[in-house]
């Protein structure tokens, strides 16, 4: 009953370890390394991306996994948004003083 889940867990761990140093990986390469059909690799990657365990997207045309820089970008924009919010309230406070 649990073989499939166990297999999925093990493959997930190996996959994460495999793609760690790369930003763009070909799906055939992953399937070769994991000894798993490409379709299963794609499904595995889809579930990882949806679970936010992998930041990136799959280019189905070129059979590529492109890992994105999203987290770093989000951090910067979140900080800028915070600055913007504080600036707005500061401006309102100063306007009231005026």
């Amino acid at each position, binding site marked *: 009953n649990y073989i499939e889940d166990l297999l999925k867990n093990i493959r997930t761990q190996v996959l994460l370890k495999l793609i760690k140093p790369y930003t763009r990986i070909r799906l055939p390469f992953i399937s070769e390394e994991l000894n798993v059909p490409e379709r299963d690799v794609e499904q595995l990657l889809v579930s990882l991306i949806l679970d936010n365990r992998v930041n990136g997207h799959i280019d189905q045309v070129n059979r590529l996994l492109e890992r994105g820089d999203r987290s770093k970008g989000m951090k*910067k924009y979140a900080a*800028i948004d915070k*600055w*913007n919010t504080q*600036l707005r309230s*500061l*401006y309102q406070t*100063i306007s009231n*003083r*005026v």
Partner: protein
Amino acid sequence: IESEKFQDDFLMEFNDTLLITYLAMFTNCSSTMNELVDKFNTTYDRH
């Protein structure tokens, strides 16, 4: 490098820097405005 992807990323960085400059300019203006208000209050303070 001549590619659309490069241009996208390059212009993104450009816009981010301009945005930061814009916000810094606003911060500067707010600070100057605050100083003006304080000077005004000090000059015309009834007490």
